[in-house]
């Protein structure tokens, strides 16, 4: 079986398009790449001569840096275009941007954009491979893959685990990708948060909705908190961040109902004291920094695999 498997994807647009075998294969590949980042000379020639453009229409520190480090460690040439320096503010359409980029013959475009589906639009109009680095409230596949890698690394498996995702499920592309991904890999996903932030039809994605955060966390192997954006208060989706922290924030008392060896995750950046208390974020169970480390390995694996996985 293993020998017959071939990674067939030219683009990484979402977890939805990936099978469980694809995800397993990406995680295996990422694990094998992790060691490269621990060498004194952190560079392999695998993607030498390949051009990677990071096209970011939304601000990002961590994801963009992670992708850039991944590409550079693979010896690709990388270029960054951000919304403030791109033609977007001059009124150029995404399709025109795509056509212009195609003329410069890049191999991979990594795109982050506020509109859901924009990587799909780009993929339809460009010859290069497209990696979705977060589109609107749709998907964030590389984040989900690094989350799954971290869980598999810490727990030895994904199938059969109970994953609790707490917070703003409605506006979180990380939550959407993770619900789809962890469910595909055989885990059970329970979500909780203010009902105003739980979207219609989330059950059809595979998640169980718990009205009480205690029920979602009970017996969980993984507790993942999502970022709450301050402007949600005005929408009006939340009365206050203080009330959110009191009733939905992850604290030590709440964690007692989870499995004793449960791990704590957060896609960052954290609002300390809102989504989780300081002691939880920095405590023994937190794997938040491992997530960041694995992000580079997962992105190296994605770049490598969509380029055909050769010349390793």
């Amino acid at each position: 079986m293993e020998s017959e498997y071939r990674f067939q994807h030219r683009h990484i647009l979402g977890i939805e398009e990936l099978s469980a075998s694809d995800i397993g294969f990406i995680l295996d590949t990422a694990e094998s790449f992790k060691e490269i980042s621990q060498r004194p000379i952190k560079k392999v020639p695998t993607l030498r001569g390949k051009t990677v453009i990071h096209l970011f229409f939304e601000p990002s520190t961590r994801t963009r840096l992670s992708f850039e480090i991944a590409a550079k460690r693979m010896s690709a040439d990388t270029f960054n275009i951000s919304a403030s320096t791109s033609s977007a503010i001059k009124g150029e359409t995404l399709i025109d941007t795509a056509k212009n980029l195609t003329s410069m013959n890049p191999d991979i475009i990594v795109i982050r954009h506020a509109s859901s589906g924009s990587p799909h639009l780009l993929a339809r109009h460009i010859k290069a491979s497209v990696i979705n680095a977060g589109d609107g409230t749709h998907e964030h596949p590389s984040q989900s893959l690094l989350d799954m890698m971290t869980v598999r690394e810490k727990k030895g498996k994904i199938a059969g685990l109970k994953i609790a995702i707490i917070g703003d499920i409605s506006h979180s592309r990380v939550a959407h990708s993770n619900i789809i991904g962890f469910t595909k890999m055989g885990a059970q996903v329970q979500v909780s948060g203010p009902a105003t932030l739980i979207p219609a039809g989330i059950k059809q994605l595979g998640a169980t909705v718990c009205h009480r955060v205690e029920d979602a966390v009970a017996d969980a192997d993984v507790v993942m908190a999502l970022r709450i954006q301050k402007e949600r208060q005005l929408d009006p989706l939340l009365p206050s961040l203080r009330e959110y922290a009191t009733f939905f924030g992850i604290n030590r008392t709440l964690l007692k109902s989870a499995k004793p060896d449960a791990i704590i995750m957060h896609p960052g950046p954290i609002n300390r004291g809102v989504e989780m208390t300081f002691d939880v974020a920095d405590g023994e169970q937190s794997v938040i920094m491992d997530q960041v480390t694995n992000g580079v390995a997962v992105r190296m694996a994605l770049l490598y695999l969509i380029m055909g996985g050769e010349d390793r």
Partner: protein
Amino acid sequence: MNSSPALLLQNARIIDPANNIDEPGDLLIINGVIRRKGKARSLSCPANCLTIDLQGKWLVPGLIDMHVHLREPGEEYKETIASGTKAAAAGGFTAVACMPNTNPVNDNQSVTSLILTKAAAEGSARVYPVGAISKNSKGTELAEYGELKKAGAVAVSDDGRPVANSQLMRRALEYSSNHSLLVISHSEEVSLSENGVMNEGALSTRLGLRGIPTVAETIMIYRDLALAEYVERPIHIAHISTRESVDLVRRAKNKGCQVTAETAPHYFTLTEETVGMYNTRAKMNPPLRSADDLAAIREGLRDGTIDAIATDHAPHSVMEKDVEFDQAANGIIGLETAVPLTLALVRENILTPARMIELLSVRPARILGVTGGSLAEGNAADITVIDPEKTFIYREEDVVSKSANSPFLGWELTGKAVLTIVGGTITFRDM
């Protein structure tokens, strides 16, 4: 195209529900007027007469689309009165009512006059301008209904910019009575739908797109029906798309309220699944809904709750449509596909041929209070001939409208208007 004073349409299946007729026959037009009807091959041709043998095709009163956007003045790159009415003729329509959301807004007699002047000079169909409910469609002050009516407007509407203020809606319903103008409501509670881009549900969540809940439509229809009942005025509800909307209109009709309603072919043909992977040609407002809503719309068409099929023909160029889904403009073109899409309901035995013609001609004429909808002798010869069997593929290069934003491109469609006649003049012929 045809300037012949006499035109004999022979050997047709004449479907004229206003006069309870569905039988084989001939129809003679002289000087733009329906002069005589008779049994098939019973009428003979006067001198200088053009004779067309219809070989059993349907001859019906000219179709009337009571809800289109012609984009002129202001957005002529999308559509003009000339191109839009040409598309209408190609789709079998002899008349259209055009919504006021042009630039400038049709909230005054000058814009209404401009539309009518252009339509008379360049149009291929009768054009009935719909004026704005409020000045500049801002929802604060009433537009000048008397002057709009005098210039030729047949109704007022807030299409595309729904009236949020209930007091203004009440005053519009009241004041429109002085000028015999129908109020057409685009019923949408914007605080619930704002920034939404597709139907709210599991699919919108999966795609990460902001949803428009069905209640955004229901709540405002309820308000509008309550106001119309309270002030005892008629109201017409535009483009209904949900099961609850059909139920509300049915209940109001059972109570005896003067309410009429329309839906569009896409709401009885497509569901939200058409959005697929961000297909902007499936983006419109109200959005495509669920299969359950679609079933309710079909039932409403069958049982008479819904009075009219109107296309909400909304041309947009690639500039508005070949963009990110949430940035794309709402609306699709519809004039050239309404006949085959409605005929699909006839083939599924949801509608009889007579009911189809009521929905596309008889009722729209009565609701708007305009000529047409009947093949009575002495009436203006506004006539559509439909070949219910003709099959064609709807290709982008064949689109007559100036814009091609249709989700039906590439579909194989059955049934087509093959001859369109306005006041005795042939405006379209494909036979």
